[in-house]
């Protein structure tokens, strides 16, 4: 670098800084980065985005003014330029001005915020109610008026999470049974939890509420266009907090009605199934599937146990007396993450999974449990 006046005192550090910022800018320009909210699909979502953009602009303007002044001062008022320091150490007028102006800006921000909050708070005149319940680590959706109810589990294969398989496009944001909602209708969500805190959040819908065991929270959304909208649990809920996504499938009201009737048929078929008596092999086969969706998160896909959670292979419970085994699966173990699965699975699935646990993983208990042995 020649010693011209165009680059005064540019030391190694500022040069490094310049290099890195150029790199950052070019990096930003070349990749497809998401920098702001996902595209909203509800009226509230649009308002939140507008509000967010408004306050971000106000903040950026304040930032530029304050640091514009500061960096001008850093440039102009430096000892190396031979300036003499001024002596002033206060100005009542200035200090009053910069107390009042920020206050007025805050009032200007509070007005649209209050209006949006009031609108979000109004859950009246809803046309459909869905109860959302958080479980470790899945969601349950109940449509009380349609008499439909199901669990929604992560659908991403374990092999993708463990890097044994290429990750799919919707890695960690895909479920077996999405929540289906009609577009153009005001849907009221009542949110609660079964075990610990969770939070139901779908960014595109502009909704997030904590799911709290023993309490019911409400919120609403009116989706404008059909589509698939994805979200995640937002409140730390233990080991698999990162693995309980939400997938909303918004459809036309006609398709929604059709979906409801299909769900009802399936429920009736499942109820008929659960009174059937299966053979040992059929039970084990069925139990294996139940274990994979319901138990594997803690007890391991191959029954090896995960972290502090007990192994299935050689387990004292699975090789011990049958009534105790049924009891812990159906009623859970209070004070631990072992939930009462009697409330989550039908009798046939419970019987199947217990049979599988007593015969699989090299366990030698050997018993066959039929649905009618399940209490209650």
């Amino acid at each position, binding site marked *: 670098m020649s010693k011209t006046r165009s680059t005064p005192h540019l030391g190694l550090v500022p040069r490094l800084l310049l290099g890195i910022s150029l790199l950052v800018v070019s990096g930003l320009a070349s990749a497809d980065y998401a920098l702001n909210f996902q595209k909203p699909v509800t009226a509230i979502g649009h308002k939140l985005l507008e509000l967010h953009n408004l306050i971000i602009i106000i903040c950026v303007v304040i*930032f530029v003014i304050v640091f514009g002044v500061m960096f001008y001062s850093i440039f102009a008022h430096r000892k190396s330029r031979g300036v003499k*320091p001024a002596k002033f150490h206060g100005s009542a007028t200035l*200090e009053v001005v910069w107390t009042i102006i*920020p206050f007025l800006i805050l009032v200007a921000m509070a007005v649209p915020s209050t209006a949006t909050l009031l609108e979000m708070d109004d859950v009246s005149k809803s046309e459909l109610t869905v109860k959302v319940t958080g479980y470790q680590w899945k969601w349950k959706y109940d449509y009380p008026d349609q008499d439909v109810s199901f669990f929604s589990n992560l659908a991403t294969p374990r092999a993708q999470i463990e890097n044994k398989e290429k990750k799919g496009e919707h890695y960690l944001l895909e479920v077996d049974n999405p929540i289906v909602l009609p577009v153009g209708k005001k849907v009221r969500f009542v949110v609660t939890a079964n075990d610990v805190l969770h939070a139901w959040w779908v960014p595109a819908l502009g909704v997030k509420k904590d799911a709290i065991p023993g309490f019911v929270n409400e919120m609403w959304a009116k989706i404008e266009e059909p589509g698939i909208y994805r979200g995640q649990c*937002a409140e730390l809920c233990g080991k698999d907090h990162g693995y309980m996504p939400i997938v909303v499938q918004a459809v036309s009201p006609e398709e929604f009605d059709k979906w409801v009737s299909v769900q009802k048929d399936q429920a009736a078929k499942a109820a008929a199934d659960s009174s059937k008596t299966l053979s040992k092999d059929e039970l084990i086969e069925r139990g294996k599937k139940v274990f994979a969706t319901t138990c594997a998160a803690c007890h391991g896909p191959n029954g090896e146990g995960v972290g502090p959670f007990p192994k299935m292979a050689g387990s004292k419970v699975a090789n011990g007396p049958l009534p105790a085994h049924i009891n812990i699966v159906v009623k859970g173990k209070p004070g631990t993450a072992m939930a009462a699965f009697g409330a989550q699975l039908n009798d046939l699935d419970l019987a199947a999974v217990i049979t599988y646990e007593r015969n699989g993983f090299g366990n030698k208990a050997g018993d066959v449990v039929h649905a009618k042995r399940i209490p209650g």
Partner: protein
Amino acid sequence: MATAHHDEHPSGIMRWLTTTNHKDIGTLYLVFAFTMAIVGGIMSLVIRSELWQPGLQIVDPHFFNQMTTVHALVMIFGFVMPAFTGLANWQIPLMIGAPDMALPRMNNWSFWILPFAATLLMLSLFMPGGGPAGGWTLYPPLNVQQSGPGVDFTILSIHMLGISSILGSINIIATVLNMRAPGMTLMKMPMFAWGWFITAFLLIASLPVLAGAVTMLLTDRHFGTHFFDAAYGGDPVLFQHVFWFFGHPEVYILVLPAFGVFSTIIPTFARKPLFGYETMVYATASIAFLSFIVWAHHMYTVGMPLQGELFFMYATMLIAVPTGVKVFNWVSTMWRGAMTFETPMLWAIGGVFIFTIGGLSGLMLSITPADFQYHDTYFVVAHFHYVIIGGSVFGLFGAVSYWLPKWTGHMYNETLGKWHFWLTMIGFNLTFFPQHFLGLAGMPRRIPDYSLQFVEFNQWSTIGAFMTIAAQLIFFYYAMQSIRAGQKATSQVWEGAEGLEWTVPSPPPYHTFATPPKVK
């Protein structure tokens, strides 16, 4: 010196175990804090390494959650709080012309609780069931559910850390009220002492509340009290209210002493008095007051009544006013000064810059409806690291580089000081600025694995984190160098520095101001 016999004290390990000298205790606190910063920093590298790419690579999710939890507890209770107590110990007596802290024996005790508390916290990681994995906020029911003694160890450790901080605070209040040199009225007191004086009240008012909350958690875990169990008439949200009644003032506990540092360093290197000293004091006091009536903005999504959400939104927005006043006053202090940019000044300006970004994102978070989108995402992670690293940690490095020549009697290597600043500044921004975007685009916090659209920014973040932690080795090196040798420091050290600490030699004798100085 007439009081030469006071200089006789045990040497070796007994000097440090039995010392009641504010300078020795200050050093102990600072060494302890730096050690904990390294421990917490390594944990952050475990977190960032796992987040380098989607999928599970290095740790399992349960251990990942332990890392996020213990990283936060170590950094807050083990690093930042003890580091500022160390600064208070070294500097408040020197700045107000006192011979020592008001309660020197208690001072020894309040330090020596810390290593045991930290050991207890670290041991929790090796217990069956692992360390606390439910987040540093320790929310029930998750933290009641977790089996093994890890959470119990953490609760007892928090009790000990809390006792230590309360004792330290009592000592600071007693020192400031009783030990100021003749002529030094409260409104002539250096801003660093003011910042700490107000912080000490915040600590005394908020830490017992935390102690209550975690004790209720402990009895829920073991003695069947069900304070937070809805099935038995308890309320899980009650814990959050009580926790954040402590937790919000805690943020100001971490930053107000650093504000005092900025108000000390900026006038020195602008060679011009602090702009609006009195408003600075009143602004600090207003922030402290407001910090007690805004706690529920950490929990807008729990389903509070509308009136509650509006109140907490308006109250939180108000904090921007006194905070703004402080920033404007710092800029006005620089205005038409004659500035030089030695290492401490870089930290002060950098700290104000970073903290202001965090303050503005805080203003965004105060807006309840918008917060429904930001809450529990990486936007919040970015926000509080901007506030706490910009506010507290930059203030801390500013303070140490400002007073290090006074403490050791040697100037440190200015080039290394600048390298440390710039690498930290770049590394920090590379780590945390992209996290704003991650949060806005929908990445929740506290997850060990993420969907594919978040890869690039997470990789920036991981690179930045390694750079930031590596840069701290430079600090360690130049601080050690300055302790051992280096150009002799004058008692004035910095051309524009004012205050009683610059009237004593560098390094100061073991006992200073045995005869109180006169302040005009």
